[in-house]
């Protein structure tokens, strides 16, 4: 090159340089034009990949939450008597199945359709949504299993004395409108809707209030209208222990629920990113703290490390961390779970001995009371807006508004629904059937054919 340059005259050199400059300028422009589509293609591919990862993760979350139905079935069967096991299993199977249909046809639209200010009015049966692909179908299955979780909470509190047909009717209504309409106020904006609670800044990441408290307060209404099981309270009004027939099943159920909660909370990101791992950590810490503290409190108050209380404690921690799991520190999660673990023991004792409401599995304490606590805890422990992090009292007040609304809505409708059922179809089986067991009375079969079981309680 140097030798060639020397042979050139000055004029030629300038022309050549100009030419080089020009051509290189053109080349740069061409390169820029060529790079953009590639970058864009990469970006598009990355985006599509992320979308698909989100869909896969959300579906995995949904499948884990579906498995919680098995957890609920085992917990409730284990904590109740052998003569009612078939009935409990049927209630858990049917509230999911009836609920799935009602939620698909109506509930999902009320919850996530374009809102009229009160609730959603579109997307019934996902009408107008292209079949086969798209986010809506993933979102539907994810929300269906959440709706079914709210529905199935009630079966435990109403165990061992509820008419099966009345329970089916209740299952239909909770998934049809009770759960979806409240859900639309807090979560509608996740799709096409938008509700007044979320506009206020109400925080409920995975549903301490929307799912668990709503189920818990309905359960309370049901248990009140039903009245206690025969033999639960002596003539002097003192509560008696009616022991569950299979603690191994109950423990299996709790482990399944804990496992399923890794879909419930981390799944609620509906996003495949690092937040999954973080939320799994806060979820797990709260559950562990709940179990440990419930055991210690029971040890002190009752005198023994009661297994049924420790199991309830793990669930209490999980329910409480459900709302705040994405926005609290690991230490915050431990405190939230620990308080829930203590709360559940005192709540079970309070409901049993003071309110004298018969809740065989502690569903009202675990889901209603600890759901309420978890919701309020957002206002204390949220790292952005919580009271303990300098966010002031505003968030706490918003949380209290949401939790209070959930109580009024779910408990109020629950009382009306169950009272109406008791006056029409009948809510409770006959005393004779209750004594013999609902398995034979309602379903004509036994859970443990060939086994000798004591049915003397």
């Amino acid at each position, binding site marked *: 090159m140097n030798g060639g340059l020397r042979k050139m005259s000055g004029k030629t050199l300038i022309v050549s340089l100009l030419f080089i400059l020009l051509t290189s300028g053109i080349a740069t422009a061409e390169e820029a034009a060529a790079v953009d589509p590639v970058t864009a293609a990469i970006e598009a591919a990355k985006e599509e990949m992320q979308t698909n990862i989100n869909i896969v993760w959300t579906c995995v979350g949904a499948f884990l939450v579906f498995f919680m139905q098995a957890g609920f079935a085992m917990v409730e069967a284990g904590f109740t008597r052998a003569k009612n096991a078939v009935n409990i299993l049927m209630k858990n199977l049917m509230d999911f199945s009836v609920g799935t249909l009602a939620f698909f046809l109506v509930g999902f639209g009320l919850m996530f359709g374009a809102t009229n200010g009160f609730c959603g009015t579109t997307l019934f049966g996902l009408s107008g949504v292209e079949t086969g692909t798209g986010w809506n179908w993933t979102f539907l299955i994810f929300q269906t299993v959440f709706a079914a979780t709210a529905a199935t909470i009630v079966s435990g509190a109403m165990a061992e004395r509820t008419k099966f047909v009345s329970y089916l009717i209740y299952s239909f209504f909770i998934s049809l409108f009770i759960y979806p309409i409240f859900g639309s106020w807090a979560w509608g904006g996740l799709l096409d809707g938008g509700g007044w609670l979320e506009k206020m800044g109400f925080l409920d990441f995975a549903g301490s209030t929307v799912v668990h408290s709503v189920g818990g307060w309905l359960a309370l209404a049901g248990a009140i209208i039903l009245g206690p099981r025969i033999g639960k309270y002596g003539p002097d009004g003192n509560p008696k222990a009616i022991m569950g027939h299979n603690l191994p099943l109950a423990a299996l159920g709790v482990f399944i629920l804990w496992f399923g909660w890794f879909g419930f909370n981390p799944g609620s990101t509906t996003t495949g990113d690092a937040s999954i791992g973080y939320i799994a950590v806060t979820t797990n810490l709260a559950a562990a703290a709940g179990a440990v503290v419930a055991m210690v409190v029971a040890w002190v108050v009752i005198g023994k490390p009661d297994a049924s209380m420790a199991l309830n404690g793990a669930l209490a921690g999980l329910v409480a961390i459900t709302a705040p799991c994405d926005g609290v520190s690991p230490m915050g999660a431990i405190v939230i779970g620990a308080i829930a673990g203590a709360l559940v023991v005192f709540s079970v004792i309070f409901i049993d001995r003071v309110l004298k409401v018969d809740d065989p599995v502690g569903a009202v304490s675990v889901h209603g009371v600890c759901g309420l606590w978890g919701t309020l805890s957002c206002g204390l422990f949220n790292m952005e807006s919580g009271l303990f992090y300098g966010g002031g009292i505003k968030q706490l007040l918003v949380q209290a508004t949401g939790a209070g609304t959930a109580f009024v809505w779910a408990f109020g409708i629950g009382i009306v629904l169950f009272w109406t059922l008791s006056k029409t179809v009948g809510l409770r089986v006959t005393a004779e059937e209750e*004594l013999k067991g609902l398995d034979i009375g309602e379903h004509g*079969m036994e859970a443990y054919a060939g086994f000798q079981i004591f049915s003397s*309680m």
Partner: protein
Amino acid sequence: MKLIIAYIQPHKLEDVKQALAKADVGKMSVTNSLGCGAQKGYHESYRGVEFDVNLLKKVRLEIGVNQDFVQKTIDTIISAARTGEIGDGKIFVVNLEECIRIRTGEKGNAAIG
């Protein structure tokens, strides 16, 4: 000494036990039993196949008592277990040859109380 054998409705066990404790009859053995009598059975069905169950679940109490406790025990069981419905159960009273407490080797009346 008599051995009192009572077949009662399972859900009456708790009441009977408490009534007996109040009447100072604190010792008994209890077993599950199946039996049939005047009470009709019930229908069960399994996968669409119907069948009758006429062996019903009952609870069997065995109580060894001294002579002066026989009537009291019987009356107590009756008062606690009676509903007036068919199926309330039956009481059998049989002579008791001997009674020995394993721990001390005591026999007869002393061993029963």
